[in-house]
């Protein structure tokens, strides 16, 4: 692979990571944080 091909693959992986974070992980973190209210501050 040449430099541009490596960068293209890396960029695609980056956009997939952004999508997963925005669509899934942010919600998981927010819910986990709210759950700690009832657990009295938890972890």
């Amino acid at each position, binding site marked *: 692979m040449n*430099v*541009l091909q490596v960068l293209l693959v890396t*960029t695609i992986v980056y*956009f997939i990571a*952004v999508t997963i974070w925005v669509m899934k992980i*942010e919600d998981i973190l927010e819910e986990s944080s709210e759950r700690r209210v009832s657990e*009295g*501050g938890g972890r």
Partner: protein
Amino acid sequence: MAVSDTVVTYSWVFLALYVIVIAGLGYWGWQKTTTQDDYATARGGFGFLALGFAYAATVASGSTFMGMPGMAYDMGFKVGYYALIYPIGAYLGMMLVARITKKVGDEAGSQSIPDFLGDRFRSPTLRLLASFIALFLLFYVMAQVVAAGHMFDTILGLEYELGIWFAGGLLLLYLTFGGSNADIVTDAVQGAIMIAIAVLIFVMVLTGWGLEGGIGAVNANLEPAQQWDTHTNPDNPTFSSWWAILLLFIAHIGFTAQPHLGNKFFAIKGTQYIKKFMITAGIAGMILPVMYLAGVLGAAQGLEVESADAIVPVLFVETMPAVVAAFLSVAILSAIISTADGLIISVSQIFANDFYRKTYAPWKGKDPSSDEVNQRALLISRIATVGVTIVAVAAVMTPPEYLSIFMWIGIGGIISAYSGPYLVGSLRESTSKTAAIVGFVAGFTVYAAIHLGPQVGLYEGLYPYNANPFAATGIGFLVSCMSTIVTSQFTKPMPAEDRNEIFRGSTELPDGVVDDD
């Protein structure tokens, strides 16, 4: 390079229009600024689109728009391992901390990132330590002013010594009274201009502009060491190995910790807009550094330049219609100004908020949220903005020889120090105050030992860390985060009710504005 009179004339016309627009936006920002908090943060004042563009424009400075193309003119396609890897790290890091910074920062009324660290850990010590390190951002400002001076010289034929004062004057025109509101709104407009030019460059390179045979011809016309099959160069500290490139990526995960970036999160209208902000900034931020390919194209076309940093203006002047080449001057100035303004505001807040409002005033028994303290802090903000700008310009009347070294005391030092407390402390609520301070000190100390010591000539050090600030910062980042995590295992976290108050304080109002009462 001799620039035609037509390009120079058009450039001055565009510059005049640009100054009028920026002044108008500065006036708008002034009208929106009535409190110290407005000046420092523009809290809750912007939607995801404007703030996303503004954040991306703040990240991409003269380095992205002139420096990296210059590197690519010398070293070819492999500079993409800096230009396109650094934003991947930076925006992934941004996503880790954006929501928590907004939520916790709004609840505590934090007005800067050092202030946020102090509020998050309830540690005046951490706030002060972070503030002192943040003063090194002044060198980052100086580097942008130097870039502006060179840009004025190259495209407009305005002597460097005059160009730097022009740049300083332009910054003060909108920042002195408009503060963060003016900073962000101008950044958003500048970001749009920068995206347009980056897209143009991308199209030019894909089509092999000025050559026959598309992008393949671009590659074929380069020296072998510049071509796309050459990934590393052991003699160049930045691209010496895949490990160095990985460390560059790691270092930039902490890039968002810098005060002039982290404070942007306070300005989003509400946490419900954070996701759209992340997407906007994440996309815009990956488009802008495509500018580096301008240097590759210039090299392939065989353009001759006195200094590699001038390749972007030379490329445009030699190959584009005069009016397009002239517009470039506005785009490059946008890249520079959109970073410099946020830096100046951040340094001003070290004095107005971190030193005065949150350290000196409480020491004197005054309430930091009182009107008296806030009005005085607002005055200090404006005076400091003027002072910082004048000092930065005066300091570079003769362009300093080792400016990039000093710049990276700021950037690398801040990332190495802040990353543990900020990133780990945002994702792990149980991180203790002691762990945060240990991570801060350990990260900075390691960075100073492996990079700053050799750079100031104290000792030889170890290659590439002694010469490559990104690799050294990557190590500093890792040390800061790991020492924060490890120390946390052995120290008691804050009491649960304190953590609840910090992380889950008051509820947001329906339109996303946090009630500070």
